[in-house]
C-alpha cells in the first residue's frame, strides 16, 4: 500500500483507505451479483458473458467523463469524449449495460436451447474482449483508458471525506439497485420468471412469452451490471480488457451458486464471501514467505491469485454436489393457509 502521504491520501491511514476500497468493491460486486442472479438464479439464463455488461457500463462512464482525446494531447484513443458530469456518466453506464445485456440476450435467447445459450454468451464475452483489445482507436485497445478526471462532489474537501462520500454514493446506488431487483424477484413477476427458469416449454404452454421475459431480465440485469461497472471505474479511475476477462463472470457465478441461487440475500452473502473474503483475502498470502518461495520456485508470480481461483472452482463444485441450493436456499412462499 506504500506511504499514504505519497499516494495522495492526505490524513488517511492505509487501513482506512483499504477499508474504503473494500467497501466500494463490495458495493459494486453486490450490484453485479444481483444482476447475474436475476438472470441466472431467478430466470435461468446462464449468461456467461455477464461481465461484458459491466465493461460496457465502465467504458460508457469513461467516454462520457473524459474530454475529447485531442484535448488531452491524443495520448490515448477512444470514441466520444463528452466531458459530462458524474450523474450523466453514471446514467450512461446504466443504459450501456442494459443495451449490451439485451444484445447478449438476442444472440442466445432467440434460437438456442437453454444449454447452448450459455456457450453462445461465453463466446460473445470472448469476442467482445478480443475486439476491444484489437481495435485500438475504439477504446484504446489492450492498454485501456486511464486518467479519468477525479470525481469530486466535494472538491474543496479533504480527500478522505471525498472518498467516504464516494462510498456513500455506492451505498445509495446499492439501496436503489436492491429495490429494483426485489421488484423483479418477488411478487407475480418473480414467480413467472422462476417458472420460465424451471421449464420454459411449460411456461410457453400457459402463455408466457419466454423470449420477451428473458430479454426484459437481460435489460434489467445488464442495467445493474452497467451501474456496477460505472461506479467501479469512477473509483479506480481506469479500465482495460484485463479488468473484464471472462473469468470475472465465473467469480460472480460462484457467488450466486454458493450464496443461494434465486435468493437475493443469499447471493449478497455469497458475494461478500467470494469477492471480498476469498478473492481479497488471498492477497494477504503475499505476506507468507513460504508462498513467496514457491512463487519463485515455479516462476509463477501470481500464485496467490491462482490460489483464489482454485478455491473458487473447488467451492463451486462442492456446492453443486453437496448443497446445490446454496447457503441460503430460495425461499418458499406460503400461500396455502387462508390468511386473515
Amino acid at each position, binding site marked *: 500500500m506504500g506511504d499514504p502521504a505519497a499516494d495522495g491520501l492526505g490524513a488517511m491511514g492505509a487501513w482506512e483507505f483499504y477499508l474504503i476500497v473494500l467497501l466500494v468493491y463490495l458495493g459494486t460486486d453486490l450490484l453485479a451479483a444481483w444482476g447475474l442472479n436475476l438472470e441466472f438464479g431467478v430466470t435461468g439464463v446462464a449468461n456467461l458473458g455477464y461481465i461484458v455488461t459491466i465493461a460496457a457500463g465502465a467504458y460508457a462512464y469513461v467516454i462520457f467523463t473524459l474530454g475529447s482525446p485531442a484535448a488531452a494531447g491524443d495520448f490515448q484513443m477512444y470514441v466520444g469524449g463528452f466531458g459530462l458530469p458524474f450523474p450523466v456518466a453514471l446514467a450512461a453506464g446504466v443504459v450501456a449495460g442494459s443495451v449490451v445485456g439485451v444484445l447478449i440476450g438476442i444472440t442466445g435467447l432467440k434460437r438456442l436451447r437453454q444449454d447452448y445459450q450459455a456457450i453462445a454468451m461465453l463466446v460473445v464475452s470472448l469476442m467482445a474482449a478480443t475486439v476491444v483489445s484489437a481495435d485500438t482507436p475504439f477504446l484504446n485497445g489492450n492498454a485501456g483508458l486511464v486518467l479519468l478526471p477525479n470525481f469530486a462532489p466535494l472538491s474543496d474537501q479533504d480527500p478522505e471525506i471525498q472518498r467516504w462520500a464516494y462510498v456513500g454514493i455506492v451505498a445509495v446506488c446499492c439501496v436503489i439497485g436492491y429495490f429494483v431487483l426485489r421488484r423483479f424477484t418477488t*411478487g407475480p413477476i418473480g414467480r*413467472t420468471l*422462476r417458472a420460465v427458469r424451471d421449464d420454459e*416449454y*411449460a411456461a410457453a*404452454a*400457459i*402463455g408466457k412469452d419466454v423470449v420477451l421475459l428473458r430479454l426484459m431480465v437481460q435489460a434489467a440485469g445488464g442495467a445493474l451490471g452497467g451501474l456496477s461497472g460505472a461506479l467501479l471505474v469512477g473509483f479506480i479511475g481506469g479500465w482495460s480488457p484485463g479488468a473484464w476477462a471472462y473469468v470475472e463472470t465465473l467469480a460472480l457465478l460462484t457467488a450466486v451458486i454458493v450464496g443461494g441461487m434465486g435468493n437475493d440475500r443469499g447471493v449478497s452473502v455469497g458475494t461478500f464471501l467470494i469477492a471480498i473474503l476469498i478473492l481479497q483475502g488471498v492477497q494477504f498470502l503475499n505476506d507468507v514467505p513460504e508462498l513467496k518461495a514457491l512463487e519463485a520456485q515455479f516462476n509463477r508470480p501470481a500464485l496467490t491469485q491462482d490460489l483464489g481461483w482454485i478455491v473458487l472452482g473447488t467451492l463451486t463444485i462442492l456446492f453443486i454436489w453437496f448443497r446445490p441450493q446454496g447457503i441460503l436456499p430460495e425461499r418458499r412462499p*406460503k*400461500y396455502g393457509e387462508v390468511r386473515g
Partner: protein
Amino acid sequence: MGSAPRPILEVSGLVKHYGGVRAVDGISFSVERGTITGLIGPNGAGKSTALNVICGFLPPDGGRVLLDGEDVTGQAMHRLARRGVVRTFQLARVFGGLTTIENLLVAAPGQRGESALGLLGGGRYWGKSENEVLGRAREMLGAFGMQDKADEYARNLSGGQKRAVETMRALMTRPKLLLLDEPMAGLSPSLSRQLEDMFLGLTREGLSLLLVEHSLDTVDRLCSKVVVMAQGKVLAEGRMSELRTRKEVQDAYVIG
C-alpha cells in the same frame, strides 16, 4: 342463428416429418365447440406429434390449423395459449422450484403484477388481482383434493400429483380449447373418475377438449367423437361404440 356453429378447431392436411419419417401425414379432423374429442391410436401413431403441431410447440411442414375459423398455423405456443389453446404434456411438466399453489397462480391470465405497471407500482397495484387469483387457485386445489400439498415444492410431488398440477395449471388459464396428452395416466382411479366428471362439467360451460388417451373406457365415457390415428394418418372417425366394431381399427391396435 340458423347455421351450425363453426368447430372451434379445424385441422386440415396437417403434415409433420422428422427426417424421412412422416410422423403426421396429412391428417384432417375437427373439434366441435363444447365437446370432447378423443385422439387415439397405437403407440407411434403420431398423436402426440399432432398435438405438438396444433398447439404451436412444433412448426408444421404442411397443412392448416384453424381456431374459431381463423388461420393460426405455426403460431408460437404462447400466442396460442393466450388465445385460449392450452396443452399439457405427455410427461407432466411442472415448475419444480415453485410450490403447488404457485404452479397454479403463475398460470392465471392477465395478472396485473406481471405487467410493466406492476413492476413500477408494486404490491399496492397488483395486490387485489393477486388475491382473486389466490382464491381461484385454492378452490381448484380443493376440487382436486390437494389443499394439503399447496405449499409443497412441485418437484417433490408424485407422478400422478404432478399430472394433476399440470391439469389444474392449464385450467387456471381459463382456456377455450384444452389439448390434453394422457391426463389420466398415473392418477388414482377415484381422481381419474372425478376428473372425467369435471371435464364433462366444463364442456357444459363451453370448454372444448382434444384428448389423447390410452384408456378406451375413458374415451368411451367422455368423447362424443373419436379420431383414430395409425402411422401418421387418420384411420377412422366416429363414435367409440361404432369404431370398436370396425376391422381396420381393431387391426391397427393389434398390429400397430
